[in-house]
């Protein structure tokens, strides 16, 4: 499994480049011998297999978004392959001159069907190199990530990966020193070179939005090749119901990450593919060196090793080639003290993209300023004398305080605050200080030999704003 080749991707690219007419019939027939045309039929196999489209919602809206491409690849509309990913439809028929439906077979005709059956028989009797099943997703991902180069210092490397978020060149990546310099360069999958501007930075989520500069914007154009509309990942899918944007991701699902760790790839060279499974969705509690990592939202932990320089910003896709996350910055988990391999989930990215492209700078700032209102006093008093590690034993509970009403007693040992383990007083203080103004506190305490859960409600008077 580890050494599986991404077999046919090169052939795929070739299919784009070759502009000579190829007949449908020929393609299908040739396909069984593992040559280039075989890839033509990779067209969203998952969708065909399920008989459903990955996007269950916003289908009409998405169909409308496909419309601009209809003029030069009408068949993609017939197929209606991936409405939420209009460019995937473009991928199926990358250039109009490739499509010569001279026989008028249409899409789901009898003859391709018979040929398909023959293909199954042939594939059974002819030994053939297996493509694996990851190649489709890798191809989708690899076309939609860019190699980034920028400022670096010491262990902060000056290279990385970004994901194309629109056909006119928005790039979503991680916030790092790389994008903080005054010159950022991006290289797309076909080797075209661009300069990029930093449009938005989100320090809380450690995300950045870049925009590629078009030739007329730069005085000395870097690119020597013509640039067309770029293939991109769709970040505009409504993230609220997660299933609407991609297949629901469950622990154990295959994931693929395409990026440029250690800047192995240059120019038009392929990105590096890493495969693994999605482990669990959990809240991030991590640090970089000695500083706590500012992002504390949900992350997708994976078992592919992606905590490498250059990997942050890599696109993480599922088997269907749908974007499910972006590899985050290199951090060390506070829960396990290990380097964490994780991705920022799609819904967080989509939310960021929406804010970054629509909101003004002031709006962005407003959402990130923490509230100034202080949290209510629970009435817990902890003994702070002792040795190096002071366990959070309750020393006293203030009379008529929320804690007393909740049933907390003297000498209870506090084990966790809001599902965060606290093993000493400083951690307890930290957890209590990050509460919202009226947030309920759930404590798990040890009382004698029994373990008790205590809900401390905010006092009524202070609940009102």
């Amino acid at each position: 499994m580890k050494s599986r080749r991404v077999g046919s991707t090169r052939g795929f690219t070739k299919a784009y480049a070759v502009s000579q007419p190829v007949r449908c019939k020929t393609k299908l027939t040739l396909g069984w011998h593992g040559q280039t045309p075989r890839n033509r039929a990779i067209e969203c196999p998952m969708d065909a297999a399920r008989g459903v489209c990955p996007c269950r919602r916003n289908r009409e809206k998405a169909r409308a978004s496909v419309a601009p491409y209809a003029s030069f690849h009408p068949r993609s509309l017939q197929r209606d392959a991936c409405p939420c990913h209009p460019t995937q439809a473009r991928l199926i028929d990358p250039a109009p001159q490739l499509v010569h439906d001279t026989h008028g077979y249409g899409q789901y005709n009898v003859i391709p069907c018979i040929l398909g059956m023959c293909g199954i028989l042939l594939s059974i009797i002819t030994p053939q190199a297996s493509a694996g099943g990851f190649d489709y997703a890798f191809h989708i991902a690899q076309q939609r990530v860019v190699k980034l180069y920028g400022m670096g210092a010491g262990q902060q490397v000056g290279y990385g990966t970004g994901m194309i978020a629109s056909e006119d060149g928005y790039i979503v990546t991680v916030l790092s020193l790389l994008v903080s310099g005054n010159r950022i360069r991006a290289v797309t999958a076909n080797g075209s070179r661009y300069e990029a501007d930093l449009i938005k930075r989100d320090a809380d989520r450690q995300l950045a939005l870049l925009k590629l500069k078009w030739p007329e914007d730069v005085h000395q154009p870097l690119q020597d090749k013509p640039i067309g509309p770029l293939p991109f990942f769709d970040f505009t899918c409504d993230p609220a119901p997660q299933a609407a944007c991609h297949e629901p991701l469950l622990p154990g699902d295959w994931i693929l990450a395409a990026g440029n760790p250690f800047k192995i790839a240059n120019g038009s060279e392929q990105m590096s593919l890493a495969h693994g499974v999605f482990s669990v969705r959990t809240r991030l509690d991590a640090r970089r060196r000695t500083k706590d990592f500012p992002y504390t939202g949900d992350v997708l932990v994976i078992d592919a090793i992606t905590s490498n320089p250059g990997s942050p910003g890599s696109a993480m896709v599922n088997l269907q080639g749908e974007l499910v996350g972006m590899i985050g910055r290199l951090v060390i988990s506070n829960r396990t003290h290990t380097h964490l391999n994780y991705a920022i989930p799609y819904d967080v990215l989509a939310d960021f993209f929406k804010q970054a492209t629509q909101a003004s700078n002031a709006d962005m700032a407003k959402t990130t300023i923490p509230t100034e209102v202080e949290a209510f006093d629970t009435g817990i008093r902890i003994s702070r004398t002792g040795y190096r590690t002071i366990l959070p034993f309750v020393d006293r509970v203030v009379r008529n305080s929320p804690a007393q009403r909740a049933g907390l007693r003297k000498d209870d040992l506090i084990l966790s605050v809001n599902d965060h383990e606290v093993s000493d007083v400083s951690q307890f203080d930290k957890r209590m200080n990050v509460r919202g103004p009226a947030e309920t506190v759930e404590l798990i305490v040890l009382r004698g030999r029994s373990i008790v859960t205590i809900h401390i409600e905010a006092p009524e008077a202070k609940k009102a704003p």
Partner: protein
Amino acid sequence: MKPRSILILPLLIYCQTPVVMAQLPAKVNDDAALMIATQQVFREIAASMKSYLVRIDTVGGTQPGEQLNLDSDNKEGRKRSQNPFRDTLGSGFVIADGPATGIVYSRDGYILTSSFNFARRPVLISVTLPDGRRLAADLVARDHVRKLALLKVDAHDLSLPTWRDTQDVQVGEWAIALGLGFGGREPSVTVGVVSALNRMQGNAIQTDAKLSPANYGGPVCDIFGRVIGIAVPMAQRAGELAGVEMYDCGVGFIVPQSRISVIAPQLMTGKSFQRGWLGIQVRSVPGVGVVVQSIADPSPMRDAGAVPGDVVKAINGFHLRNYADLAKQIYMIPAGETLQVRLFRDGSAIDIDVALASAEALGMLPEAEEPFDPSVPVEERTPEDQKEPAPPSP
């Protein structure tokens, strides 16, 4: 869901897909369908194993540090002041205080996990059962050699996972590791294959599923959801934290069912396993073998009649060429087990039976009793030897 039904589902999916995908090239879609079927199984296993996993939280305790090097300039002084038979703690890995994973071992509340999770010697251990009950737990016993630990909670009628017979496990089959180390109720899933059998003197199966503090103590399952064994940190050296630094690197170890079925009943009686020691200090001499330099008093080797200058030729029938061979034969054998040792003295072989002792049972190590002959070259030291200028044999 029972393991048997897990098997049926992917098969159904796999059989049906050729019909559905008839219009598309068969091979490509066969591959894709197989991938979908596999991930479906991984999902099922994650969901089904949830009812056997327990989350372990610890409170208090301290980070086990490296050996204190108070007198590093004076190596002789340092050697005298410290017991050379003490287990070194090993890597400089820092243990976090996040939750750990265990698995239900008996219906009446025995929980099996890894001793790694208690290296900090916590003052309190609590266990959250699959049904959400959180109970205080007692640490019944630990196996410092196989890195296992047994907990007891006051619970009844817990459901038990199916265990995989170790005899049938084959290299190359799927290995799915589960853990609760990232918190929450959902286990994390990492997937790999069985890399090798009979590692660490038959005490471990090797896997490339990513094992880390997030799932040490948790089960590693086969593709049918049966537990192959318990994920533990392990390395070919001693120390409470040995092997942790290899986390997520593609080399991980599982204590298999065949070993657990022997060890766990003994742990239930409260018996802990300590690392076993011969109580000798040795030197590797090329062409000669492992030469005994000095013997602790009391020690198993002294009791068995060995004297300085003896050459340790073989242990349990395995021929020894150097110190590394000797260490490899011994480091996974707990105190109390008996070894057959073949010594060479004045050209004749002497076979003795030696019961390994724990570090506490060993006496002082006299200064080199065997006269040191500078004309005999000392063999290149192993990395382990470099840490300890005069390595005591295990």
